[in-house]
């Protein structure tokens, strides 16, 4: 009973942190990028101010929008928000752990993507349609690559939930393997595509022909735009947590063990910060790709996933 209570508290803490820190992470990314480019940049708190500003504005609803116009931001947000509740952050064995099946997570990502796509097609303007068509293209390859990587995880850990995989990687004897290296590379590529970061899409781009995610939201304003942008911030922190939990499970706390929490919290924040620095450095050192190069980029990710599966098999045969 006490254990369950403790797990509930840990889950609530996790929810509060991940929902609270999502804009901060985006802000840290923005100011780090600016610093690396030699500008002073906005403060890391800027996304909070942006959201607050958007909330204070009265939304302009296009007069040819359907009733569903206001429905899509909620779908997109609640799908990503559900993932945020399911992916372990600082602790394993949260109350929501049994739900965190990896394929369910992929489905929820697809649901959130579908809501954004339909929002882009809502008023029938050219940018929205073009952005949606491109996002569909990225989604096709990233989903395939992600599934192959998931296969590797599930076969190593013998458990389909993210929590189970992370538990196995945290406490099991797996060491460093070639297979996981390939899987990490594939997963990073997918994460870049899913969160719309630089080689694939430019998160700070406005009104350029190559933009994808922002293009679909151009007809949204006020609180609805705030919800979409918040969902994008959540997506970033969710992907960071996912990668950190699986590939770098050191220090992860047990939700039922109160004394492991501080280390878990500290290591989670440190991992997020490290990933933010790494991504910022990567973003300033590369240029955005042409749209039709992205399928090749993600195709390589899929190939890496396949290689990872093959190496896993070979290693299993050699070891066993």
């Amino acid at each position, binding site marked *: 009973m006490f254990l369950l209570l403790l797990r509930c508290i840990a889950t609530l803490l996790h929810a509060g942190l991940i929902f609270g820190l999502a804009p901060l992470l985006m802000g840290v990314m923005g100011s780090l990028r600016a610093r690396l480019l030699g500008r002073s940049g906005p403060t890391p708190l800027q996304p909070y101010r942006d959201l607050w500003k958007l*909330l*204070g504005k*009265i*939304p*302009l*609803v*296009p*007069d*040819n929008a*359907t*009733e569903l116009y206001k429905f899509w931001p909620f*779908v997109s947000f*609640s*799908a990503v*928000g*559900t993932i945020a*509740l399911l992916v372990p952050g600082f602790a394993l064995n949260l109350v929501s752990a*049994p*739900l965190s*099946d990896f*394929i*369910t997570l992929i489905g929820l990502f*697809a*649901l959130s993507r*579908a809501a954004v796509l*339909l929002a882009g*097609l*809502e*008023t*029938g*303007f*050219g940018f*929205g*349609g073009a952005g*949606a*068509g491109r996002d*569909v*293209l990225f*989604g*096709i*390859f*990233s*989903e*395939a690559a*992600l*599934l*192959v990587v998931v*296969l590797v995880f599930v*076969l190593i850990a013998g458990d*389909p*939930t993210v929590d189970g995989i992370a538990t196995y990687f945290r406490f099991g004897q797996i060491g460093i393997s070639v297979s996981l290296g390939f899987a990490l590379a594939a997963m990073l590529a997918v994460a870049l595509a899913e969160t719309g970061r630089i080689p694939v899409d430019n998160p700070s781009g406005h009104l350029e022909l190559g933009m994808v995610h922002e293009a679909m939201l151009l*007809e949204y304003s*006020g*609180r609805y735009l705030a*919800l979409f942008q918040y969902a994008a911030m959540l997506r970033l922190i969710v992907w960071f947590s996912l990668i950190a939990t699986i590939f770098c499970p050191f220090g992860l706390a047990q939700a039922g063990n109160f004394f492991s929490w501080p280390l878990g919290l500290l290591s989670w924040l440190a991992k997020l910060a490290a990933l933010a620095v790494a991504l910022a450095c990567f973003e300033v050192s590369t240029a955005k790709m042409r749209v*039709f190069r992205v399928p090749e980029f993600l195709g390589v990710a899929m190939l890496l996933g*396949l290689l990872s*599966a*093959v190496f896993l*098999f070979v290693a299993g045969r050699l070891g066993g």
Partner: protein
Amino acid sequence: MIGLPGQGMHLGIDPLSALFLCMLVPQVVASAIAVEKKSVTFWVFVLGMVLALLAADAYALVLGFELMSAASWLLVLRGERVEGRSPALLYMGIALFSAACLIPAVFLPAGGLAFGLLLLGVGAKAGLAPLHAWLPRAHPAPTAGVSAVMSGGMVKIALYIIIRYGFIVFGNAIEPWWGVALMVAGAASVLIGSLRAALEVELKTVLACSTVEHAGLIAVGLGVALRARAMDDPALASLGLQAALLCALAHAAFKPLLFLGAGAVKQATGTTSLNWLGGLMRAMPRLGMLMLVGAAGMAALPLGPGFAPEFLLLHAVIAAAGAGGVMAWIGFTALLGVLGLSAALALAAAVRIIGIGFLGRPRTLHAAAAEEANTPNLIGMGLLAACCLPLALTPGLVLDALQPVISQLVPNAPEAALAYAPLPLLVLMLLLAAAAFFGMRRWAARGEREALPWTGGFGKPPAWLPFGDPATQPSATGFAEPVQRALGLAVLGSAGTDPSERYILAPLNRLHGQVTRLAEWVRRATVRQRLAFVFAALVMFLLVLGLGQNG
């Protein structure tokens, strides 16, 4: 009684046929309510399907199957022409081919040859690659109610025969390669079906291509199960069967729903080309919401009816990859990649139906002047949407109800619980949405203003275009263009034709032309040529006779 002399016809019902009858009933009722109450051919078609399901001997099965084929051929014949040609001839050719394979197969002794023939014959009917090219042409041709039952029902009957013979009748001679063959055919159908569904412009053709995809998904599940059963792995076999049967159930609910909706769109606007539609959600809100349910199923989104089968199928493939040798390992990993590609393609197809057809601005006056679908149509579709509900929210209970069928097909199959729980997910999502909603009520500025849409910076449309210039709006073709460039060119070639048409139908067509020319030449031969021909034949005959006697 009709039947083989001295034996009569045997009918019977067991859990498997009861399950498929359960799939058939809602869609037939819905189609009857919506469109087809009075058509005798439709009811003969339904009778054929029921007979095929209730058959307890091969004769009754073939009779029912052929009755179904013949009646549906009549319905296709009466349907509309596609590009000036009726698909009925092609349909009849495929029906004859499938009969020519099925009839020997059911009377042959159990074994590889019989199953191979059965797979060819019934696979052609189910729209499995490589014999699927007829399906996207023939299924859209008849009226919506018939299209609905053809896609949701007839394809299932064909798959039912595969299950019946693969698992039960030929059950003792089962071999792993049967499952592999099914999986290969299924994977090819999944890929081509979903890709074409994302590229086609006609709404009904999109739905028919998606039927090819779902037939492929069911075949993949059945293949996993068949292979696992042959290799004596009841747990995996039961997982594969769960995926296949649940997918069949879900498809039997949402695909007829979508077809009926396409029929209503056709009635309201006179066209089903997505490039001519747009903005229907405002003119036909109820129809639009029902289509949204169907599209969620087609895209296999969580909380929709299509996700649980997809979930089970992916898990079955992952489990199968872990349980085999190196070839199985690589093969199943590649299969998983294909399934991932096609899941996202299915999402694209579903988003395109809703986003291009129902959202946005009307692209033509027909679409602008659409009125809400008539009540019977909405009732029929509502019935099917209600059938989607248990599949979407309580798939675990549906799987429990499937357990007798699974233990009939795989003896000593373990009971497996479903790891996907939609209800807690739904609760979480609703909580989050409510939190966002009330948070906005509390902190955000109230109210909203209506404004002119931005329309990407184009100027004000002229007065005779009250819904804006359609040319400034992305079309269905434009939306699919990136996919066409990245995948369509690679798989379908620059002409965009189906590989099955290019490599199977087109050579057959050429052969047909050559044979016709030969026959025509014989018919037009002069008396002298004919006499020469008869003389030559006589000489040949005598020569052969003489040689035979000498030797």
